[in-house]
């Protein structure tokens, strides 16, 4: 019989075999990475809002305390989105004619709420409670980043389960003194290792087993 295949097919055959193997493995890694990418987590994606509100200005420049607007952060699960009236407290005096603030004034006139775009959005089967984290020494900037430097609010953490667990498994590495909770500029000190341990004891942080339990976050 005459040769069916050209000489080169030998190499070709082997290359394809190993090639596909490498491609498959590579693809798996790619998918794993993609699932953690900002595209999926929405981290560092600035959302445009109905009102051009700048945290940079209000927190960084003006120096408002987080709690001035997010009133329930120490009391309840939700930190609380300020009612229009809170905006008007100041803006009925300053920038009272600024066209940028028209939506706010409109809302105040008509009683229709401002439709903000949600930035930090957990799945609805996850039950996160701000008040307990704040009262146990977890600072705002730990999860929300340097809000005082964000003209447009954006999410800086992946907000994925592995990220939550990372902290629940060893909270020591982020605990701060009560006084520093709302301090945007706070940075992890060099001796955090033993500081954290001390604070954990002081705050009666629950055991790893409790913090890892499913029902701690899922109900």
């Amino acid at each position, binding site marked *: *019989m*005459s*040769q*069916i295949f050209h000489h080169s*097919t030998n190499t070709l*055959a082997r290359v394809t*075999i190993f090639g596909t193997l490498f491609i498959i493995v590579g693809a798996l890694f790619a998918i794993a990475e993609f699932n953690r990418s900002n595209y999926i987590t929405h981290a560092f994606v600035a959302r445009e809002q109905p009102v051009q509100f700048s945290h940079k200005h209000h927190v960084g420049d003006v120096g408002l305390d987080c709690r001035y607007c997010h009133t329930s952060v120490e009391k309840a699960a939700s930190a609380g989105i300020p009612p229009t009236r809170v905006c008007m407290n100041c803006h009925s005096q300053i920038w009272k004619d600024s066209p940028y603030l028209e939506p706010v004034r409109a809302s105040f006139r008509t009683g229709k709420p401002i439709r903000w775009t949600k930035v930090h959005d957990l799945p609805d089967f996850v039950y996160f409670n701000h008040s307990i984290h704040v009262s146990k020494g977890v600072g705002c900037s730990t999860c929300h980043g340097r809000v005082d430097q964000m003209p447009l609010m954006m999410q800086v953490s992946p907000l994925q389960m592995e990220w939550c667990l990372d902290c629940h498994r060893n909270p020591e590495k982020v605990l701060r003194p009560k006084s520093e909770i709302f301090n945007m500029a706070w940075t992890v000190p060099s001796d955090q290792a033993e500081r954290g341990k001390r604070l954990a004891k002081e705050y009666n942080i629950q055991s790893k087993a409790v913090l*890892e339990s499913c029902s701690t976050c899922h109900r």
Partner: protein
Amino acid sequence: MKQIAPPLYGLLAEFDTPNELVRAARATYAAGYRRIDAFTPFPIEELSEAIGFAQNKLALIVLIGGILGGLFGFGLQYWASAITYPINVGGRPTNSWPAFIPITFEMTVLFAALAAVLGMLALNGLPQPYHPAFNVPRFALASNDRFFLMIAKADPLFTHQGTHEFLKSLNPREVSDIDE
């Protein structure tokens, strides 16, 4: 067929029965030829030893594959259940090793089996869709009812003439050149 005679790869002798082939193979080996191979439509134990071929690598490869598989299987389960996220499941210990045995076993078998098949292919240098022998038209019968003996040009004793003569002396059906 080609105009310029292409380089030679070896010589191919065709026999009718397995017996003739085995005898011929023994003779050839006895004659001192080493770069020889035989082609048959079904496995013939005597042949490999007749052409002086003895291999035992494969068994070792499979053994290693099996051991790796077992270790991987148990390791994965132990790490997942006892180290990275130890959870209280029905009051059982995090390292419930008896429950991990079935998967450990399955992984052992899987890896060993893969090692066996891939090892065989690798050692045999397959896939190899092109081989000079296929250039000989009658070689198609090697997968049907004919038995072939080949002496490669690379063999130190190989001379086109002499080897041809030698093969003829084994009274095959016919002897043909294998083009590269």
